[in-house]
C-alpha cells in the first residue's frame, strides 16, 4: 500500500507544506509527488515532458487537485484525465478553498470522486486529510 504515489497538485507553497504536514500527522506515509501547476500535473499523469522517464508503476493512487492553478486550471486537468482511457478511472479528489456552488457542480460534473473544502482551522484540515487518506489509500479498492 505504502508504495503507491499520491499526486498533490498545489501551487501555494504554504498549502503544500501544510498538506504534507497534515498527511504526516494522519500517518500517511505514501510517497507524495507535488505538481505546482496543471501542466506539470498532466505531464506526470501521462508520463511526458519532465516526467517522461518516470517508472510506469508510479501511477498515482489518488490525485489531490486544487482548482485555481497556473497554466492549466484544475477543472481542465480533471477533464484531460477523464478523457484519456488510461487515466479515466484514476481517483481524483478536489481539494480547494472554493465554496462556489458552480465549482462544486462542475467538478462532480467532470467526474471528481470527492470535493473537499480546505478548512482554515488546521486541526479540521488534518482531520479531513486523515479521512481522505483512510478512504482512498486504505478502504478503497483501486481499479486493477
Amino acid at each position, binding site marked *: 500500500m505504502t508504495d503507491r504515489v499520491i499526486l498533490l497538485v498545489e501551487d*501555494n507553497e504554504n498549502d503544500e507544506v501544510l498538506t504534507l504536514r497534515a498527511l504526516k500527522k494522519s500517518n500517511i506515509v505514501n510517497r507524495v509527488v507535488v505538481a505546482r501547476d496543471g501542466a506539470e500535473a498532466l505531464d506526470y499523469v501521462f508520463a511526458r515532458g519532465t516526467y517522461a522517464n518516470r517508472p510506469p508503476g508510479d501511477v498515482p493512487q489518488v490525485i489531490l487537485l486544487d482548482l485555481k492553478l497556473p497554466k492549466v486550471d484544475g477543472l481542465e486537468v480533471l477533464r484531460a484525465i477523464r478523457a484519456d482511457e488510461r487515466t479515466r478511472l484514476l481517483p481524483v479528489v478536489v481539494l480547494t*478553498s472554493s465554496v462556489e456552488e458552480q465549482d462544486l457542480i462542475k467538478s462532480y460534473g467532470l467526474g471528481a470522486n470527492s470535493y473537499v473544502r480546505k478548512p*482554515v*482551522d488546521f486541526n479540521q484540515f488534518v482531520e479531513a486529510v486523515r479521512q481522505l487518506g483512510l478512504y482512498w489509500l486504505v478502504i478503497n479498492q483501486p481499479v486493477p
Partner: protein
Amino acid sequence: MRLVSGAVSAFAEATSDYQRLLTIVARSAAEVIGDICTVVLLDDAGDLYTRAMFTTDPSIEALLTSLVDVPIRAAEPSIAWNVMASGQAAFVPKLDLEAVRGRMAPRNYELFRAVGVHSLIVAPMRVRGTALGVVAMWRHLPGRDAYDDLDLELTQDLANHAALAISNARLVEALRHSEQVKSAEQAAVRANQFLDAIVEHIPDMVFVKDANRLAFTRFNRAGELLLGVPRAALIGKTDYDLFPADEAAFFQAKDRETLSAKQLVEIAEEPIQTQQGKRWLHTKKVPILDDDGTPVYLLGISHDITARKLADEELRAAKEQAEQASKELETFSYSVAHDLRAPLRGIDGFSQALLDDYGDRLDEVGLDYLARVRKLAQHMAELIDDLLALSRVTRAELARERVELSALARAAAARLQRLEPDRQIDLVIEPGLMVDADSRLLSIALDNLLGNAWKFTSKVAAARIELGTEVTASGRAFFIRDNGAGFDIQYVHKLFGVFQRLHSATEFPGTGIGLATVARIIHRHRGRVWAEGAPGQGATFYFTLGDPETA
C-alpha cells in the same frame, strides 16, 4: 284672347313643374283653338320629341298618344323641322295631305290620314332667337272651319308665351339644380373641413402620399412640428428630398410593401432625421384604394416614441451596467473565497505547527498568544464566509414557491441543536405556516434569526424561543421571539447594518453580518423586517414576505 291670357297666367304658376306646363299649353290650345294640339320640343341631343298632346275628341286619343316621346330626326322630312329652321309658322288652312306627303315623315302622313286632319298650323316656339320647338294645331272634326288668320295669330301668341314659360322653367330648373350642386358642394366642403380639422389636431404625425411618385400630398400640424419643416416645404416632395438616402430608401420600401400587399404595414421602431435631430417613430402605413381596389394613396400615421426609446436605452444601459457590476462582484467574491482564505489557512496552520513542534519551548503567555493568533485567523475566516453568504444572497435569483415556513424553521432549529446537543430550549413553532417564498433564502434567514435567538438565550436559565404570526400595522407578520439578552431599543437602527453589533464579542461571539443578511433576504422578497426588545427582556424579530397572504 281672354282665354289665351288665362292660359298664359297658368304658365307662370306652372313654371315649377315643367311637364305640367307643357300639358297646360297643349290643353289650352286644343280647347281654345281646337281640335288637337301637340307640343314638340328640341332635346339636348338635337332631336325633336312630342312632349305633350291634347285632343277634345276621346276617340282618337289612343292614336295620338303613339306620337308622344317618339323622336323626329332632323334628317327626316318633317314640317316641324322646316318651321324650326325657318322660324316662320307653317299655316295650311286647307290641308291637301297628298300635296305635302313628300315633306312629311311617313309615320305622320299615316297618322294625319287616319285622324283626318284637314287644317294645320305649326308655330315655332322661340326665345331670344333660339328655337325651343313647335306648337302644332290640327283640325280634324268634320264640319269645322279651316284655321283663319286669327287662329294663326293666337297659336303664334300661345307658342311665344309657352316658349317664354318653358325657357323660364328651364332656367328655374337649371338654377335649382345648380343650387343643389352648390349645397352638395358646400356639404362636401364642410365634411372635408371637419375631416381636415380632425386630421390636423391628431397629436401624431399624419401624412398622405400619392401611390405613384410617393410624393407627400398632405401633412398635419403634428407632422410639421415633428419634422420641424412647414407643410408648404413638404407637399409635393418625396422622402428623398427630405431625408438621408438610406432613410428615404427604407421609408419608400415600406410604402411599396404597403401598396403591393394592400394592407396595413406596421413599423414598430424607425429612426428619422428631423430638424431637431434624430427621432424614433412607431409608424402604421395603410393603402387607400379606389373603387377598383387599386391603391391611389398611402396614409401614414407616426407616433413619436423617442422618449420611450431613450428611456428603454437608458434602462438597457443601466441593466448592462448592473450585470457587469454583478459579474465583477462574482469575480471579486470568488477571489475573496479563494485567495483571502489561503493566507488564513497558513496563519492558523503554522501557528498550530509551532504549538505542536515548539510548544514546549514557549511559556504560558507565548502559548496564549499563539492561541489568540489561531482564534483571530478562524474568526476572520468566519467573517469572510459570512460576507460571501451575504453576497450570494444578493446575487441569487429569487425563486418563489409554496413552502412551509414552519418546516423550514424546524429544520434550522434541528441544525442548531446538533451543533450544541446539550442546550435545553423550549422551542415553540406555530405549525402549518405556508408562504410564497424562496425556500433556500428563507432557510438562510431562519438560520440567522433562530441562530441569534439560540445565541442570546445561552445565558438564560429557562430559554424559550417562539415562532408565530401576529397582525401588525404591516399586515400579518411572522415573529421570532426569545427571552434572551435583548437589546437597547435606541440602537435598533444599527441592528440590520453590516458589521454592526450591539454586544461585545466576549459577551456573545458573532460577525455582525447575520442580520444584514436577513434584512437583504426579506427585502428581496419585498417584505419588511423590524425588531423590538429591551435589555434583559428578550428580543422579537418581525418580518413579512411581500406575498399576498402576509402583505
